[in-house]
């Protein structure tokens, strides 16, 4: 099989697997969440019926009211309980919003209402998202020396481990450290500060935010009677940014690990060397030589100059 056809088949295979993965996820979500939704729906319908039976408003009036409240709710405006309503757009919250915009997390708990706001969001994000990626990449690049290359050198020179084993050990340690300090501990903190979040909710929030998915079902600092709200929001912002940086770091370390174990070559993915601007310490070179030989299929799809942007 010529290299070109082989990469073709490989790409097709990966895409098919990807689609299958999505379908699987859909099935599982549907299976888990569907019944709960059904129950809620029947409850709500009977509640509504009950309500209509004992009040003087008719169904259409109720519908109008419902629509209005829903619309407002979508924009984070609530009239319930005299809406003590902190504004969603005071300085700290706007800052928080700008941050979620440029990191592409995008919770959506507050969104621009005005047309001008929307237009500005687009322009701001057009500039801000690449800028953020650049800043993150630059920081991670420096951090790699301290957190990856340094320890690896120590492991190999002083502990005398083989490169492969050293990489695996290092990655395992890094992973444990990151999960503890950026997931477990913040989850604890969040579940304490936010009254109705469980530990799992906090963990779930940390994960969804640090992957930049940002569903927005849990957003900190939104409780009606939150003390030091502005400070809290800024602290969360810093946490998100640093956490994002660390996730990038973990990802790059994992990439390097996969490279050292020959996995990237196996799947015809760009090797770590081709993406890293800095070469690693000389000790690695011997290991690198034989992995590099296997990553040079002679087809255009192996061009490496345009694949590197971090995500």
């Amino acid at each position, binding site marked *: 099989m010529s290299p070109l056809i082989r990469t073709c088949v490989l*790409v097709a295979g*990966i*895409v098919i697997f990807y689609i299958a993965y*999505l*379908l699987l*996820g*859909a099935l*599982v*979500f*549907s299976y*888990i*969440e569907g019944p*709960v939704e059904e129950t809620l*729906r029947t409850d*709500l319908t009977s*509640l509504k019926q009950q*309500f209509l039976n004992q*009040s003087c408003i008719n169904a259409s009036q109720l519908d109008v*009211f419902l629509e*209005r*409240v829903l619309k*407002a709710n*979508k*924009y984070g*405006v609530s009239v*319930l*309980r005299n809406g003590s309503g902190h*504004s*969603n757009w005071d300085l700290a919250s*706007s*800052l928080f919003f700008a941050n979620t915009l*440029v990191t592409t*997390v*995008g919770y*959506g708990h507050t*969104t*621009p209402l*005005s047309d*001008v706001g*929307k237009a500005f969001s*687009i322009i701001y*994000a057009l500039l801000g998202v*690449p800028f953020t990626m650049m*800043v993150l990449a630059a*920081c991670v690049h420096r951090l790699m020396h301290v957190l990856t290359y340094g320890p690896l050198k120590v492991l190999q020179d002083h502990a005398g481990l083989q490169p492969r084993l050293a990489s695996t050990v290092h990655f395992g340690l890094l992973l444990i450290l990151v999960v503890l300090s950026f997931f477990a501990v913040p989850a604890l903190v969040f579940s304490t500060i936010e009254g109705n979040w469980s530990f*799992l909710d906090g963990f779930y929030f940390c994960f*969804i935010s640090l*992957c*930049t*998915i*940002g*569903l*927005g*079902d849990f957003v900190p600092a939104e409780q009606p009677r939150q003390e030091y709200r502005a400070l809290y929001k800024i602290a969360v912002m810093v946490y998100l940014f640093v956490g994002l940086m660390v996730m990038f770091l973990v990802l790059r370390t994992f990439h390097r690990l996969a490279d050292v174990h020959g996995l990237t070559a196996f799947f015809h993915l760009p090797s770590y060397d081709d993406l890293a601007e800095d070469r690693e310490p000389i000790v690695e070179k011997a290991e690198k030589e034989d992995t590099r030989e296997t990553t040079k299929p002679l087809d*255009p799809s192996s061009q490496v*100059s*345009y*694949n*590197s*942007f971090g995500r």
Partner: protein
Amino acid sequence: MQFVSRLPSILLLGVVYVAFVLAGGAVFWRLEGGLVEQNLVRLREEKSRLLQRLSCLDIQSLEEVGQLIRSASKYGLSLKSNSTSDGFWKFTSSSIFAATVVTTIGYGNISPGTMYGQIFCVFFALVGIPLNVVVLNKVGKYMLSIERKFCHFIEQKTNRKKCVRVFIHSLSFATLAVLYFVAPVMIFQQYEGWSYAEAVYYCFITLSTIGFGDYVADNDPDRYYPEWYAFIMGAWIFFGLAWLALLINHCIDLLEGFNGYLKEKREGTASMSQGSQPDETQAPEKSIK
């Protein structure tokens, strides 16, 4: 050590970044703050008006109704009298949800409410996101290589390197822009009833993977959507993201080329040969093989 010597530049970058985010926050504050006040005031007036008009309703039951709709909207259920919506977790919308998790768009208009749903979501994303990145990159690279092959083919025929390259690049950019931006905007305008500005805003927020969720296609429980709608939307998101990855890679390509060009100028005419643009000259060779 290298790490220490590069510290000043990264400090500068950090300062600029913080200033950028602060500036953005301030602008949003000015733009949006006023509007919320107005909305709140108006809503409160309406609420009191409703309470006055409907004598049988007290504030307690009104708040109950409010909570009711909050819960309903979280699950995408419409309480309008005669609608027969399927809610959010039917299969097609679950797939769309899975796709938004894996592409990190994460609208949030629906999200798992059960504990098991949340746990599964975490593990699903752990595997899905890297998978997504790999697939998008592969597809993007493939699109680029097709473009390069085509470019080379035309070059051979007409023998004018630079013009052809620019032409092909702009042609592909234009076609794909129409496919992934212009056409979707028109479709959304028609099927979602959004204005032109709203549709553009939605397309941008989705393709940049920010994904607020204030506008989500295929989501209105009171609207009718044709069968192919969800599928087209999924395909659009996927290929649109791949196209964006391609675009970004193009820009990096250009930047690198530009950087190389600047280097040449600085070093004089010394190495004007193949050293400067390795990927440009190697591509045609490799595609011959």
